[in-house]
Every structure is written in structure tokens, then in C-alpha cells.
């Protein structure tokens, strides 16, 4: 993912580091026991270690929510922003510093409600980064309000007689956005799959959107209970270009063969079904990346002054 040395001054430094995994761990999280965020955090820390990412060249950006506490627990640079706006901040970081590895971590409210506009456009910009949406189908931090992904009929504090609307399908939405580059779904109760998905997302050159079905024992203990308990209810998309995790494929026997370059089939698979489908829905590494298309040569101050003088000439009296 990091293909450019940021500066000559950093040339002597090996961009890959050999650090124990603990070195990626920040202060311990205070999510509820059993919260799915714990597992995702552990998988992410393992990824950073395995991919030998230099902590100082890695940035985790988040919005606001339980899930958005993520950056505080990882020892890289982080920006815990404001509700719904992780993606614009991450966009700014990556545009300014294409040499940094950038991750954006969002909740379902963050991404699909208040930040929905940014979600659409971030997919379209297609900057090289990983976007994690920790989807617990509820507003966790603010204590149990309906989110766009809350199942219809599921009661919350704001809609005590059940959510009025059918749940938004984030996969279908993302797959419908022009320039979609990488769309995957995984589930916190299949840790090996979470890891393999994050790895595929990280290695993908482009905007990698990963929806992580995340259990919230506090407010939505029921929504993922069945698939988390009965393996047969979790379907694995398999393909050599997809998320490949042999162990998971061994335990989870319901497989769907799916070529991630097949967008139509991906859209079909993304439709609601009685099973939870995890795996790589779509991948297209050919789309231009915004930080590349917008990249411009760097100039020295003297150079700019020369050019500026030419601008003044154009405006000279």
C-alpha cells in the first residue's frame, strides 16, 4: 500500500519494521465485555504487526461512537474526529501524505447516517485506504438509538415500538457507487476471517470498504445471535481472488463461489437473505486512485517564487 518514499530524508529508514505486536497496542479499551470491537482491534493490531507497518507512518482516523474509540487503542498516529466525518479527515491525510497508510474506522451511524454523503464520495474518490464500518445495527455510545442498519421492527430508545423503516443495506449501497473498488463483509465472530479480510483490504490498492458485522451485547444482543451460534447461517464467499482463509472455509461449510470481479453477481449476493454472507463481494484494482490522479510535483520555495513572478507578470499594470 505504501509505494512512495515520503522524502529523501526518510530514505535511509526501512519503511518496514519488525516490532512485537504489543508495540501496536495503546491503552486497553473499555468496551463492554463481549463487544465485537475487541476482536476487530486485536485483528487490526495483528495486521499492523504482520504487515510490518511503521507506527509513525500509519494513521487511524475515526468518527464518534463506541467503535470510533479505536485509534486510542492503537499505537500509531490517530485522529478521533467528529461524528460522521472520519472519511473527510482521512481523505485530507491521504491527499497530503500519500506515503502514509491510512485507516478510517466508523460505526454504522457514523458511516451510513450522519456521514452518508462522505461515504458515497469517498468510494468515488477511491483513495488508497481501508475503511472499516463496525456495524452493530445500533447507536452504541449514545445508548441505544435506531440506526439506518437497525432491522425493521427492532425496538430502541428512540423507536421503542420497533424501527419504522426497512434497514439500509450498506453493501448494496457501496456496490452501487461509481468507482467502487473493494467491498467486503466480515463478522467479528469469525476472527480468522476478520483478519484475512483486513489483510486483503490493506493490500488492495484503492478504497477498501469493509463492513464488519459487530456484536453489541449491550443493545443488540439478538441481531447476530443466530449466525454467531449456528455456523450454517454464515455463508462464506470463496474464490482464489477473494478473502482466502482455509481454516475458516473448513469450519464454515456453506460456501458460495463468487468471482469478486463479477459486479452483477456481487450485487445479487448483497441482497438481504436469511444467511449472513461474508467475504469479498467486489474488487477492482484498475480504478484510478484519487491521490494518484491529483498528485502534482513538489516545488521548492525558489521555484514557486519564479512561477509567482510569472503570475505577477500576467497581472502587471
Amino acid at each position, binding site marked *: 500500500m505504501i509505494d512512495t518514499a*515520503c*522524502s529523501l*530524508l*526518510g530514505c535511509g529508514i526501512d519503511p518496514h519494521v519488525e516490532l512485537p505486536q504489543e508495540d501496536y497496542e*495503546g*491503552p486497553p479499551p473499555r468496551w463492554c465485555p463481549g463487544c465485537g470491537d475487541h476482536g476487530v482491534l486485536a485483528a487490526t493490531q495483528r495486521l499492523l504487526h504482520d504487515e510490518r507497518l*511503521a*507506527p*509513525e*507512518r*500509519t*494513521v*487511524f*482516523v475515526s468518527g*464518534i461512537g463506541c467503535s470510533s474509540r479505536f*485509534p*486510542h487503542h492503537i*499505537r*500509531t*498516529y*490517530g*485522529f*478521533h*474526529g*467528529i461524528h460522521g*466525518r472520519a*472519511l*473527510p*479527515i*482521512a*481523505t*485530507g*491525510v*491521504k*491527499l*497530503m*501524505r500519500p*506515503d*502514509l497508510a491510512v485507516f478510517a474506522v466508523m460505526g454504522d451511524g457514523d458511516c451510513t447516517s450522519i456521514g452518508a*454523503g*462522505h461515504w*458515497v*464520495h469517498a468510494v468515488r474518490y477511491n483513495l488508497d485506504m481501508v475503511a472499516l464500518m463496525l456495524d452493530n445495527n445500533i447507536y452504541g455510545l449514545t445508548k441505544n438509538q435506531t440506526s439506518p442498519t437497525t432491522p425493521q421492527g427492532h425496538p430502541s430508545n428512540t423507536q421503542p415500538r420497533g424501527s419504522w423503516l426497512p434497514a439500509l443495506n450498506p453493501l448494496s449501497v457501496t456496490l452501487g457507487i461509481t468507482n467502487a473498488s473493494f467491498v467486503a463483509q466480515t463478522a467479528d465472530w469469525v476472527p480468522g476471517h476478520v483478519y484475512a479480510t483486513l489483510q486483503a483490504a490493506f493490500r488492495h490498492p484503492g478504497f477498501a470498504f469493509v463492513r464488519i458485522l459487530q456484536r453489541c451485547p449491550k443493545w443488540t444482543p439478538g441481531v447476530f445471535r443466530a449466525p454467531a451460534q449456528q455456523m450454517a447461517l454464515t455463508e462464506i464467499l470463496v474464490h482464489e481472488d477473494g478473502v482466502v482463509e482455509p481454516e475458516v472455509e473448513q469450519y464454515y461449510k456453506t460456501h458460495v463461489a463468487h468471482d469478486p470481479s463479477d459486479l452483477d453477481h456481487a450485487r445479487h449476493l448483497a441482497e438481504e437473505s436469511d444467511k449472513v454472507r461474508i467475504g469479498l463481494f467486489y474488487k477492482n484494482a484498475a480504478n484510478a486512485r484519487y491521490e494518484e490522479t*491529483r498528485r*502534482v*510535483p*513538489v*516545488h521548492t*520555495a*525558489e521555484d*514557486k*517564487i519564479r*512561477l*509567482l*513572478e510569472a*503570475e*505577477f507578470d500576467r*497581472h*502587471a*499594470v
Partner: protein
Amino acid sequence: MPTHVSAPTGPAEAGHDTGRIPLHGLVELAEHTLEVVSDAGEGAQKCGQGFGALSARMGNGSWTVEIIPAEIQPPPRTPGSASGVRIRIGTREVTNWGDAAGLVIAFNEQVLLSRHRLDALADDAVILLEKRWGESDDPAVLAEWKAALEELSSKPYRIVLVPLEEQTLTVVDNPLHGKNMFALGVLCRIYDRDLDRAREQILRQFKKKSRDVQQANVRLLELGASWAKENLDFQIRVPPGPEKGPMVVMNGNEAVGMGAIASGMELCAMYPITPATSVSHYLGDVFERFGGIVHQAEDEIAAAGVAVGASFAGKVAFTVTSGPGLALKTEFLGLAVMTETPLVVVDVQRGGPSTGLPTKVEQADLLAVLFGQPGDAPKVVLAPATIEECFHCMITARRLAEALRAVVVVLTDANLATGVTPFPRPVPQPDWQATAPDGAPVAQGGKPYQWDPETGLSTRFVPGQPGGMFTATGLCHDEKSAVTYAPHVHQKGCTMRSRKLAALQSTLQPPDVVGPDSGDLLVVGWGSTKGAIEEACERARAEGLSVSSTHLTFLSPLQPGLRAIFERFRRVMTVEINYSDRVGDPFITSENRRMGQLAWLLRAQLLVDVDCWTRVMGEPLRPGQILAGIRAKFGKGADS
């Protein structure tokens, strides 16, 4: 009413209303205002801007401002379609758009009517009016013509009919593209402009067009000049001032864009909004050549977010907007303040609230900028007063943002954004520019908010610096950026962020007072009104009134020494383009009166009984209007 003078005179005389122009003979004036108005699309703007530029090249002070129709494609021959330029030229530097125009070229009587209704024309203005509408075969047009002339006859205007289209058609087939150059020729003759320079300028202007087009435009210019020579018996001379050294001419938004470049900033994130957008038009054209990019975000929130993210990761970035966009950026500005992420925000103010007056000037975002964030969000606020300062303040803004890890808001407005004036060519310095973060490791134990207990300042850690890893957060945090709600931590954080402003203020100098150091009335202004205020005060002093003025460029922190200055005057009054109640209006008392925004601020900060005189007419203040306001404070004459 001052009359025309035979030679340019000293400062006391300059800046008067336009002199009465005799229709015979040559008159010399120290300054003069004219307008060119047409239907949208007929090119009056090009003609007027060309005339302004030509005058600047010939050594005159000049200020041009666009007359913008309210719609993109307004129906032709309606007052709403008036499009054009007002040009004020002078022997001295011209700092504002003046009062009423002494001469106007109008391409039809309807657009002329709109200027009349807006009181844009001097009572005795000379009007050069396209004559063909009065000879129209269309009875409806004739009726409109008659009605318009009837309405115009309420003032002693002197109307001269000009065969604009008829003459133009002798050179080109489509008068839509040509009348303006004929008109420019007419103006060149009247104002004794150098035709060679005008030709040169046309060729440059039409550089990308075919030779035929270039030649046709030059011929039209010549035709206009010779027609005027034969048919008009008057000429106006506004002699050039002393040699001024190299000058450049541009509008305030271009100046902001160039200033941003000169400051070394490399990322402008924005969302289109009038009147700020043209900064991004300019930068969109040239910025990449300088290693910069304009990111048009999906909305203003995202634009602010991208700028904050970019600044967090490297050189200071900036965002450009106007009122409604500023409102949307609010939460991000708070985040930038809280995380001490440097950021430059340019707010090109327009009339508000809400969508308000999209193309028109107002200075009504000051308090929103200062206090628009929930919680305490101290930031630096600068207000350039001239187009030249629009350029230079960007360098200061960038530097302050970086050095103080602060949000710096630059408040310009539609008047500066669209006004065009020459100013001394800047001599850019390498030191103006941001340098790149060097990725140096952070020393053991370094903290991302290691506030200097005295100044509140701390060193920023930028991604890439080994050992500096921290998570910036909008939540209450301690020096390590660890989130905590412990009572003293918030108190400390707020103190440190606020202290930075006081520390900055300790390095500021008091503003200058223009005019005597003490007296009866001190007029206090900020932003684009400087030229008009100083001109008005100068005229008031010429009338024997004891008036001085001072102009504030730092609005947060305020420049020091203000109370001492104010105490030397019997009364202090702000002059601003924002709303204030007028005492005497129904229900309005001195106790419930809502004040102009700077007045609010000064009263709150300094405990001085600052009065205010404000107007929200959607146009720049006219010096004469301010003068009337000043006279009224002295009990002399009625306020406008």
C-alpha cells in the same frame, strides 16, 4: 456639490463626488466615477475592466467593481439584467467604489433605469445611451423607452444618444460581440486614454482568438474613438499620479489565491459558494503548477474535514467559503481548535442570514466566526482592508496558524472579492512559505500538547515523526492527548488554548489613528470599508468636523491599546456593513438596541460606550453616505 477643478489638487480635495462635466470643452478632475452597463452577455464588464486596467497602466489610481445581474440568463432589456462595471479613477490611489457615477454608458434604457433606481448616478450625470431603442419599430419597446425616459427625467441627467449598434454593425455582423469595444473606444476618446496601449491590451485580451477577431475588435475600438471625436464635444482628464514603481492589478479573490500560493500552502479544500468560489476558479487554473491542489469536496463540512486532515498530516491547508458554508464548517472549526490543528479559513462574507444576498457584500460573519462554535473555541481572526492586504494577509495567516497551532480566519467580503485595483507588485520571499515537516523523531517523553505554561504554545507532532504517535481528539484531553473528563484537565486545556491568543496579543501593536490623535469622534472600522471610511473622515475634517478614524485588522485577539485610543475621543463609533437597530425606531431604546458586530465586541471587551453606524444595503458603503452619518452625529444634516 464640488465642481470640477482645473488641476488635480491636494489630499483635501481628492475623493469628492464626481464633478459636473460640461458637455463642451476639456475638464480636469482629481477623481471621477463612471459606469458601463449592458444586458448580461453584451460585454460591458469586459469593456469596463479594460478601461480600468488601461487607466491603471496609464498611472491612475483605479477601482473597478462589477455590477452583477441577479440571474445567470436574465431576460434582456430588463432592469434585472443590468450587468457591467463601475470604474472609479483618480490621480491618487483609489480605495473604494465612490459615490455616484458622473458618466455612464448604457446599452439600453432598462439597465440604465436599474442604476437610476439604485441611486448609482449623480444627479447631473452624463448618460451616453444607445439610441436604437428609441427608434424601434416594436411599439412595446417604444413604450418602454418612453416610460423609462419619463422616469429618468426626475433628475437633471444629461442624456446623449449614441448609435452604438449601428456603428458596430459597420464592422461586425453580430453586435452582441462588438458594442463593448466600440464603447471602450468612446471612453478612450472622452478620457484621453492612450489608444496604442488600448490596442495592445485588446490584442492581449483576445490572444487566444483568431486574427480576424483581434482585428475586428481593434477596428471597433478605433471606430468608437473617432466617432466620439467627431460627435462629442467634451473631454475629461484625470491626470496620472507620480510614478509608483511596478504594480499589479487583480481582484481580492485572486489576491487571496496568490497569497495562499506565496504562503506555501498546498491544499485548498472547498465547496462552491458565491462570492468565495472565484478563489478556487483562480487556483483551479494555476495551483497545480505550484504543486498545490484544489479539492472540491462534496460539501463544506467535508471541505473543512479534508483541510483539517491535510493540516494534521503536513503543511497547513486552507478552506475558502462564504456565510452558509461557514455555518456548515462550524463543527470542524471546533475540532481544529480543540486538537490544535493549524488551519486557515477564508470567509468571503456576503449578505445573510441564510442564503441572504449571495452576490452582495456584508460584514456580518464576525461574531459567528468568533463565537459560532459551541464551547470555547478561541481562534485568530484577521480582516484585510484592501485588495493588496488580501494577498499579504494570507502569508501572515499561514504563519500564525502554524506557529500557534491555531485556526486563523481571514474575513474578506464581496466588495474586496470582486473589486479590482492596482497595488504595488509584491516581492515574494522564500521565508513566506511553509516548510515541510522533517520527520525528526520526537524526543523521549515528548507530549503532543506539551503546553508552555505561560504561553499555551506547544510543538506539533506530524505523522512520520517516530516516537510522536498520538491520537488527536476532539474530546477533552490532557497533555498526552489522553481522553479524560477530570475537572482540572478541561480547565487547563481551555486555559492553554485561550492563552495563545493573549500571548499573540502581547506581540501586537496598537492600530494607527488616521487624522488628529484626539477629538470629538473616532470612527472605527474593519475590513473592506477602510477606503470609504477614511475618505469620508477626510471630507468631514475638510468641513471642519473633528473626526479621526482607526481601522482594526486583528479582530481576535484585538490589537492592544484600544481603550487608550478611544479615551482620547469624546465619542467612538463603528462603521460597518452589518445590521444594527436605530435608536428612535419603534421599540428601540439604547438598552435593547442590537449593535453592529464590531461595536458589540468592543463594548464587551473594553467597557467603552461604543456607538455604531451600519447599513446593509447589499452594496459597499459610499463615502458620501458615511459622511452624512458623521454629519448627523454632529447634528448637521440628515442621516441617509
